[in-house]
């Protein structure tokens, strides 16, 4: 009886010991597969996110210098335009109203009641251009360095001159010009006086409409939104009055609602009561 019991135990042990090796091997393989899988996924994500920059950095592909710059800085330009246009034209608004957690710059303002506003930003187009330029300048320097390195890696002799950046809002587009002369020499010589990156956007048109609204605000203390929507069928104009007398304007491209220009004004504000006892600042 005892013998039998022991045999069984041994058998059990034997079974156990026999099957133990393949399971461990299997676990090791699974772990390896999991690690490799994770690595592949991470690599894929990184490639997806940084592919253009990797290609540009490694000097792969056959991009022209302008295409290189577009790949390198295009997203930064779009980001700068997005931030500025959602915040009344400023990357870091100084005098603003908070609306849905966004700082919206006052472009026309009076702290008093019963008075029309004082223009705060009479050159909005130029202001936005300067804001975008300042926002991208650091990245632009790096991209120009990368561009030079990229062509040098391809065996070119690169001569790059110093130059500034110019951002221009134009009808249906934003053109960023890098005024750096570039000479690429290999078997032949290619010369570029400047490099341009173009982003399609209706901000130029929206700035013109904002100027018109602001002139109405400065003269009459209000503006009529339907006038603009009648004239520009692609445009949606929203006017949202706040309790302190401020008005937030939101200009939206109907077919591309992410393209917006938001700004604030405080003009001809009416107080609760007669407003004798205070003013806003």
């Amino acid at each position, binding site marked *: 009886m005892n013998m039998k019991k022991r045999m069984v135990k041994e058998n059990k042990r034997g079974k156990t010991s026999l099957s133990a090796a393949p399971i461990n091997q299997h676990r090791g393989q699974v772990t390896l597969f999991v690690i490799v899988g994770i690595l592949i996924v991470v690599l894929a994500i990184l490639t997806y996110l940084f592919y253009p920059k990797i290609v540009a950095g490694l000097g792969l592909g056959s991009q022209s210098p302008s295409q290189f710059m577009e790949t390198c800085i295009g997203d930064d330009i779009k980001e700068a335009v997005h931030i500025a246009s959602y915040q009344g034209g400023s990357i870091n608004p100084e*005098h603003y109203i908070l609306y849905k957690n966004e700082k919206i710059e006052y472009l026309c303002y009076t702290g008093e009641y019963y008075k029309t506003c004082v223009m705060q930003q009479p050159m909005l187009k130029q202001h936005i251009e300067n804001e975008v330029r300042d926002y991208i300048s650091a990245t632009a320097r790096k991209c120009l360095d990368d561009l030079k390195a990229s062509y040098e890696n391809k065996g070119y002799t690169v001569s790059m001159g110093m130059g500034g950046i110019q951002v221009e809002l134009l009808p249906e587009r934003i053109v960023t010009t890098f005024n750096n002369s570039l000479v690429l020499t290999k078997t032949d010589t290619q010369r570029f006086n400047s490099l341009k990156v173009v982003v399609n956007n209706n901000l130029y048109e929206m700035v013109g409409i904002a100027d018109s609204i*602001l002139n109405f605000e400065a003269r009459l203390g209000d503006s009529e939104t339907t006038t603009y929507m009648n004239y520009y069928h692609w445009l949606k104009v929203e006017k949202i009055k706040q309790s302190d007398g401020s008005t937030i304007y939101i200009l939206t491209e109907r077919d591309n609602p992410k393209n917006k220009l938001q700004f604030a004004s405080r003009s001809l504000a009416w107080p609760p009561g007669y407003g004798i006892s205070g003013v806003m600042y």
Partner: protein
Amino acid sequence: MDEIKLIKKDLVRKKLIVQKNLFIIIVLGVLLIGLVNSIGLPTGGVSYCCEKTVAGAWCQNSPKDNCNIGIDPKTNSVFRAVASNCESLSYCKMGTCINSQEGTCMENTPQRVCDENKGVWSEKPVDEVPQCSLGCCLIGDQAAFVTQTRCKRLSLLYGLETNFRTDISNEVQCVLSASSDAKGACVFEKEYETTCKFTTKRECLDMMSSDSSVNFHEGYLCSDETLGTNCGPSQKTTCVEGRDEVFFLDSCGNLANVYDSSKAKDMEYWSRVYDVGASCNSGQSNADSATCGNCDYYLGSTCKAFKRGEDKVKPNIGNNICRDLSCEYKGKTYSHGETWCDNSEGADKNLPGSKYFRLVCYDGDVTVEPCADFRQEVCEESQTNGFKVAACVVNMWQDCASQDTKEDCENIDRRDCQWVAINGTSESGYQCPLLGAVGVSTTDTVKFKGGGCVPKNPPGFDFWNSAGEAEGLCNIASATCTVTYEAGISGSESCVSGCECLTQAWEDSMNKMCTNLGDCGSKLNFIGVQGFQNKSAITREDVDEEEDSGGGGLF
């Protein structure tokens, strides 16, 4: 106190005439506090002109505490703050800022701000600045009512020649004067084949200069059989940027006439250019029409690619349709371009917290435009042939209380007030304080003679703000009425004058006056919650004849 009354009555008996003054003080709504606290200069006393405020605003009249007196990083000079009005100081004087590059002008701009932004400043108002005078800029087949500099700039931006006409003095005339270039079939040879491009005469002439085989046929479509091109009718349609209508496309991809399914095989319709006005169902919106593409934005439709679920019918030909731009809101349909009022709960009674809103239907989308808070703007709506038009208009209630005749009160050109009759009128009227009213001293009073003038739409007050004016303004409704009694020989008293003040009707009408002044008196708020003061306060006080000077008082 009882002793004093007995002594008084004894004295009166001796003279056989006893007068007893009863002060009925109605304090409707809130408790009364002197109005003096609510009147005063802005915080900080003397007003300064701040070149820049601490908050970052340029050229603001403000107490000194709000002025930024730091250093301007751009000029390295200290921001100025002078005890004066900005208009009188050169650096903050208002004028016009000219953008000489873009040709635009911005009004009400301080010199300092214009200079800072590298604009050209003029102290003249925009209408008097020569660089800002407007004219008609004809550019291609478009027109814009802009400055001459702007016209040149547009020419540069669009690469088109412009014609600036100063003889056209208004925008409507300018837009109407825009004429499109003559269009037609530009026939040419390409790869041993006669083909065609539907374009302007100008563009075709440019092609002619480089190719002698090019011919222009004004008013003809490329699908015209007589031209002998390889272009013919097709079953395709398209939308064109800047146009409302759905257009046919020919087999070469050129634009043809407005989509009309009944003429899809009509060769005459495919040979000549038809005016939009002569196309199918002209003068109608043709929204959701399967057969006609003569859309009109102003009548409520525009060309869009057909979308199942969004468009009610599929076009018989092609994939574009006149999209219906009307809106659905709270179960009602509103036309494109229609505006209407949809106010908050309680706005019909102007209850505390209620607010007016204007709604706008455009492009199938309803947007909400709140009118100014505290009912300083009200939404007004009118209707023409069922088409609603609404606007937030300023509520001109401020000087209602100072009007003492019905005629002045209800002068709608000057103010938005209404006359509330007070039941049981008195010849002398009731003296009421006018504290808080603009331009009125604290000792002025108004007589409610037969009635009182109150806002048609009572404004809201910031009654929760101890520094606000709510109490002072509501106190306007406080009235003092002197009731004279005559004591009889038997000791009984009979009312001699001011007796109407003892009636419930008088109390009710005074209460109505109070609640009509604004967020005063006993009210529910806009969500139906009763205010913390739910009774009108009436105080009675006996006074000696000598003490009653006949003037009003505030309690």
